[in-house]
């Protein structure tokens, strides 16, 4: 394992919009097939990091390497699941149209989808349990179904790295379970998954690494190394409440754009080891 290049290396990257730097001097390395939870308060720069990883935001300085090569050298090896509000749900496309878009990178500029592409789309739909919705307009779906459509699209992309911004926020239990199952399946296929979440419990239990962010990297490593009180209070500041029994509670009142149902997340100290 020591000789295989890391799937993803971020080296001293500073990222921002215009003159404003949101994330400063970010460095971390993610090995093959790892599941990474990105955790931090609102405005910590989680979405900014993701935008840089897909190439939407240029780096102010530093580098991002995938398989040892600069970002952008590998086409179509990063798949991104957008947040729900980033999608125009009134656009005239149905479920299988959206999932087929995942194949466009493999098709290149002029080729039309082949039989094989149809098969990949079908099996992606099946894996997410939405095969019967394939002819439905995306605007007619429930929130959870909409998310599963984009999960299916990411799957049909056959990516090496999958990025998901807050997939557990404001979705039903079925979708949350479908997302977690997909994570496990991707893990078996050695696909690296990087997922931002507010759910500290989930981050500790279902991920190999945690990246704790607040404008910079507070900590990166295995969950039991990262999820310590000193790290969490550095990341969350006053939002972190430590109970008498040792349980920690992140209380972010009234976040600007997030779903309020998930404002309060608890984590038991004894799970941290």
């Amino acid at each position, binding site marked *: 394992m020591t000789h295989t290049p890391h799937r993803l290396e971020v080296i001293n990257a500073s990222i921002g919009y215009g003159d404003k730097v949101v994330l400063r001097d970010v460095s971390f390395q993610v090995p093959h097939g790892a599941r990474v939870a990105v955790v931090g308060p609102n405005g910590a720069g989680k979405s900014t990091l993701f935008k840089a990883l897909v190439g939407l935001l240029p780096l102010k300085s530093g580098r991002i390497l995938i398989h040892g090569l600069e970002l952008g050298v590998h086409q179509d090896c990063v798949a*991104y699941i957008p947040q729900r509000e980033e999608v125009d749900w009134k656009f005239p496309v*149905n479920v299988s149209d*959206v999932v087929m878009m995942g194949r*466009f990178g493999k098709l290149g500029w002029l080729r039309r989808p082949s039989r094989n592409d149809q098969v990949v789309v079908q099996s992606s739909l099946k894996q997410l349990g939405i095969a019967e919705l394939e002819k439905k*307009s995306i605007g007619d779906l429930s929130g959870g179904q909409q998310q599963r459509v984009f999960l299916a699209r990411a799957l049909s992309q056959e990516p090496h790295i999958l990025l998901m911004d807050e997939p557990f926020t404001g979705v039903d239990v079925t979708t949350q379970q479908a997302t977690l199952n997909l994570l496990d399946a991707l893990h078996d296929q050695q696909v690296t998954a990087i997922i931002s979440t507010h759910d500290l419990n989930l981050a500790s239990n279902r991920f190999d690494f945690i990246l704790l962010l607040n404008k910079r990297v507070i900590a990166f490593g295995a969950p039991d190394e990262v999820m310590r009180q000193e790290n969490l209070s550095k990341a969350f500041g006053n939002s972190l409440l430590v109970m008498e029994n040792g349980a920690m509670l992140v209380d972010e009142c009234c976040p600007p754009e997030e779903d309020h149902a998930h404002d309060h997340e608890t984590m038991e100290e004894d799970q941290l080891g």
Partner: protein
Amino acid sequence: MVNWLLEPLTYGFMQRGLAASVMVGVLCAVMGTYVVLRGMAFLGDAIAHAILPGIAVAYILDGSLLIGALAAAGAVAVGIGFFSRKGNLKEDTAIGILFAAALSLGVALISTMQTFAVDLSHIMFGNVLGVSTNDLWLTAVLGAGILSTVGLLYKQFLVISFDPILAATLRLPAELLRYAMLLLLALNVVVSLQTVGVGLSSAMLVTPAATAYLLTRRLFPMMLVSALIGALSSIVGLYLSYYLNIVSGASIVLTATTFFLFAFLWKRLKG
């Protein structure tokens, strides 16, 4: 009835007018799907007005109106892309500035001409009965070019319109594709000059496509239905213009608007 339909076609200018109108109706309707979905209606209108100086210069030099318009439209489309690139100016601000400047320049140039009023009305509202055989050929060639580009870049235009983030992960040259779309739009406006004129071409871009948006649920069917409505509007509108003796551009646009109102009502009653 058959006579009623055939009589206008005994005139050569009516045959050419009808052919031009149908081609333009279809082209505008197809490009219009992107205009409607990407919210570019204002942009289409701006380009239409912005080509005025090109036409004026062509008029003065007695050259081809289409080529003059084409040059102006290309310049304006690139100009809008340039000023709004990298977020220097918001796109609609850049459009507003160039639109007004080009329109003023056009009117200034045309006002130097003797036959100012007639020329301006032809340019603004079209002169479908003055379509020459050469114009028809040029329209056909440009139209074929527009349609085949839309066909070839169907996937790419779909992705940049629906999901710019996917476009970025697929490493599509989004900026370049946006320019391409602007140029196609500009070409399309130029082509529609003869039939509906500068003033009404944005209506032909928006109205049939908006109607199709109400009636369909996928992009490709939306394009087909839009094209059908565009063609029908052109045919019905031209006959109405012949028999009611009204300006053809206006009657084509009003026919398209009628289709839209029916679709809107149907949708309302249904759901």
